[in-house]
């Protein structure tokens, strides 16, 4: 069995290497005439140009008591700019089928632009207006605020959203990661136009900006458009310093009562930062534990063997100011305790003994073989190029990445496990009516609805 796997792996490594190399060869690190760095891929298949970009600094930049400011600022950017009010601005986009969007994440504020090549000038020009001269008109701000409040109200009653928000609130007290990115009903009510303007001035600049473009033009032509989009932004961002934080409450189990037939469980603890030398071994380990779709230990034990859940997973969440190992499951109330105990047992087991040699070989083979699937569309390619820049992995990362996976040994994986899975100590948040008594007190079949 083992020999077969090794043979398959070698074959995969060869073909994948050529696929990856042909992709990597197309990436250009270029500079615009205005001095802005961007990564570009020329692809003449479709008459399109796309750009993904990110400014470092997202909801981590929200003022205390005003959580949601970055998110709201991003949402209002395309609601009127320069001489154009919201309607006129949207008309300009729609008439040319230009697709523009902005969103604030925890650590970044991101934008995405897609246009037919014939409308490239207008598309990048309109983006420039939105980035440099947003109007923040009162009526647009109030409209966006009303929509944000409605989405927060929905979030408060969605078991999955609520589990996540409560988990982060407990793990990161007194840290921006502890508040929902869109804010709370109270905090969003307090955000004023001045706050939005301050967030805009402080966050959107050239020194914290990463850009990836792809489309039917060469890097020189793309560079002119990139200059057009980002001309006039301040040279330097004024970011509020954020402290590094480890998750708190690890070992706790918190129940949020909700009248639903299923308990949503979110668990997590300290993980690794992306720059940690053991990140790749940890990534391989997580694939074996709960990352691999139909092959992970959690999938097999919780879903396949016992039918306890439709969805069970774990993942590494490296962030700029913390590193997390997270996971979740949705399972019937009367067997929530059983599901949780199986999951924690699997974590303890793999932390103590590591994966088998066969599991490790298969996981590496999967991760290497599936890498080209991340590059089969323009938007995926641009997304990958942006992530590589944001994580400072270097332009040769695509060439190096499979070698890094290939080199992972059983010892590496055990060492990585010791970093973050020891004792399987997790902060666990449960939303629903979980029956957490050690022995299930009620019969297995839940009462039918209605």
């Amino acid at each position: 069995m083992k020999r077969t796997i090794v043979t398959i792996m070698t074959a995969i490594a060869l073909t994948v290497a050529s696929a990856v190399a042909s992709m990597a060869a197309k990436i250009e690190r270029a500079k615009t005439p205005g001095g802005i760095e961007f990564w570009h891929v020329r692809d003449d298949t479709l008459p399109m140009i796309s750009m993904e970009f990110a400014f470092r600094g997202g909801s981590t930049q929200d003022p205390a008591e005003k959580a949601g400011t970055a998110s709201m600022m991003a949402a209002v950017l395309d609601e009127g700019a320069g001489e154009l009010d919201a309607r006129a601005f949207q008309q300009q986009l729609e008439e040319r089928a230009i697709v523009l969007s902005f969103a604030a994440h925890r650590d970044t504020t991101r934008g995405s632009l897609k246009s037919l090549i014939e409308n490239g000038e207008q598309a990048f020009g309109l983006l420039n207006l939105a980035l440099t001269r947003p109007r923040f008109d009162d009526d647009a701000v109030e409209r966006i605020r009303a929509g944000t409040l409605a989405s927060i109200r929905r979030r408060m009653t969605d078991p999955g959203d609520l589990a996540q928000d409560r988990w982060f609130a407990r793990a990161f007290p007194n840290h921006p990661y502890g508040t929902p990115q869109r804010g709370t009903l109270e905090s969003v009510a307090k955000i004023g136009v001045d706050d939005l303007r301050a967030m805009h001035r402080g966050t959107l600049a050239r020194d914290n900006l990463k850009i990836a473009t792809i489309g039917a033009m060469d890097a020189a032509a793309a560079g002119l458009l990139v200059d057009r989009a980002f001309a006039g932004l301040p040279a330097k961002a004024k970011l509020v310093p954020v402290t590094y934080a480890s998750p708190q409450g690890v070992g706790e189990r918190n129940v949020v009562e909700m009248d639903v037939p299923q308990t949503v469980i979110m668990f997590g603890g300290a993980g690794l930062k992306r720059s940690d030398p053991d990140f790749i071994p940890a990534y391989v380990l997580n694939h074996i534990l709960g990352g691999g779709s139909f092959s992970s230990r959690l999938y097999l034990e919780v879903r396949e063997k016992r039918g306890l859940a439709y969805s069970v997973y774990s993942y590494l969440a490296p962030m700029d100011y913390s590193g997390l190992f997270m996971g979740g499951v949705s399972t019937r109330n009367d067997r929530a305790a059983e599901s949780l105990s199986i999951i924690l047992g699997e974590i303890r087991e793999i932390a103590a003994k590591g994966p088998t040699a066969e599991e490790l070989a298969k996981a590496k083979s999967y991760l290497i073989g599936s890498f080209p699937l991340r590059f089969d569309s323009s938007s995926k390619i641009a997304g990958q190029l942006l992530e590589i820049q944001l994580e400072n992995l270097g332009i040769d990362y695509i060439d190096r990445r499979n070698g890094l996976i290939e080199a992972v040994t059983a010892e590496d994986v055990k060492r990585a496990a010791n970093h973050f899975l020891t004792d399987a100590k997790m902060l666990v948040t449960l939303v629903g009516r979980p029956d957490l008594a050690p022995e299930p007190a009620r019969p297995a079949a839940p009462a039918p609805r209605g």
Partner: protein
Amino acid sequence: MQTLAAVAIAGTAALTMSRPAETAIAGPDISNFKLKNGMEVVVIPDRRTPVVTHMVWYRVGSADEEAGKTGIAHFLEHLMFKGTKKNPSGRFSKVLAEIGGQENAFTSQDYTAYFQRTSKEHLPQLMEFEADRMTGLVLTDENVLPERDVVLEERRSRTDSDPSAILSEAAQAALFANHPYGKPIIGWEHEIRALNRQDALDFYKIHYAPNNAILIVAGDVNADEVRALAEKTYGAVPAAASIKPRVRPEEPEARAQRRVELADPRVKQPQLSRYYLAPSYANAAAGEAEALDVLAHILGSGSLSRLYRALVVEQQIAVNAGAWYQGTALDKGRFGVYATPRPGTTLDALESAIDLVLAKVAADGIESAELERAKTRLIADSVYAQDNQSRLARMYGSGMTTGSTVDQIRTWPNRIREVQPEAVREAARKWLELRRSVTSRLQPAAPKSEKPS
């Protein structure tokens, strides 16, 4: 997040939005042919990256289930991963987990589809495995019963934990008085509980055959190599005599509008939705479905749309509002409008405001500028869609399993370009009649007493 067997919930715009096509630009060089056993094949070359998307679509969905067995189409889809005589205990998935392949499947009312995405050199192997499980499935109670619990958990996640999903399920049931589109794809809970191994095998034997299937391969391939491989693999599976034309009970003429309401303590944000019965691309008069697509865009796509402008921007009684048209259906299509009220706005007031917007389009028609904008965007979306091989493959699969031909799907943008303003007005006048509709209202309620019920 892994979702084996994602159920494609009907009524969302995701299934229907834009379709690919030629437009002014050269579209993908698509081939379409049939194997001797009746299996149809579509090849969509995309040579940018050496990967392939391999899909098999069966012309069977939840609307083809017999009475009392709701959920069997979707349950079988889950069970298709359990293994065959030749490749027992999920060997197909295990191989994919080694070679770096992604896989999944989904069930709708009209189709069930299975797909894998891998580096291109694995295509022959994928085709062997998939052809094998077209007839070779082996089921035992040991693998069927836990999977039924998985499906019940899936139902709890998707529907039972979410008041808006419970209401939407009730609205579909009310919209279709006689046609099986009124049944939930995942099935009613009490009927899922009763499904067993034999039900799944019976359904499998009747519907899974090459003459009821479409193979779609998108990616770094050409038609000749796919044809040769398909003949060797799928071509060896005999056609089945059990495949019959898909005739479902017809809806009677709708004569009374229906209303469904849910007041639930879990709801903090009210919502109003309306669903209309409408023709689909399979049965609309020439140009009518295209006009409905344009109408949905003008009424409710984006911040310039009629509903958004009126309710959100001008009257400031809603936080969002929109419209959609699901024309991809073998039988009736559906048209929907919805809005989320601002605090202080009643659902009655919101509904009246929506009705005024709809009535105005039916009475006065649309402006040429908004028609041009809608066409520009719908046609551009079909260019943008070509960027993604999986999305293209899905468009062809969903179109072909619901009565469209490859050529009709290809030329869709050209027909959108031809839509006349009068046709849009006429579509609104003819199809947005209350008697064809269900209106659903989601509202908060006081918490239930804490006593066990």
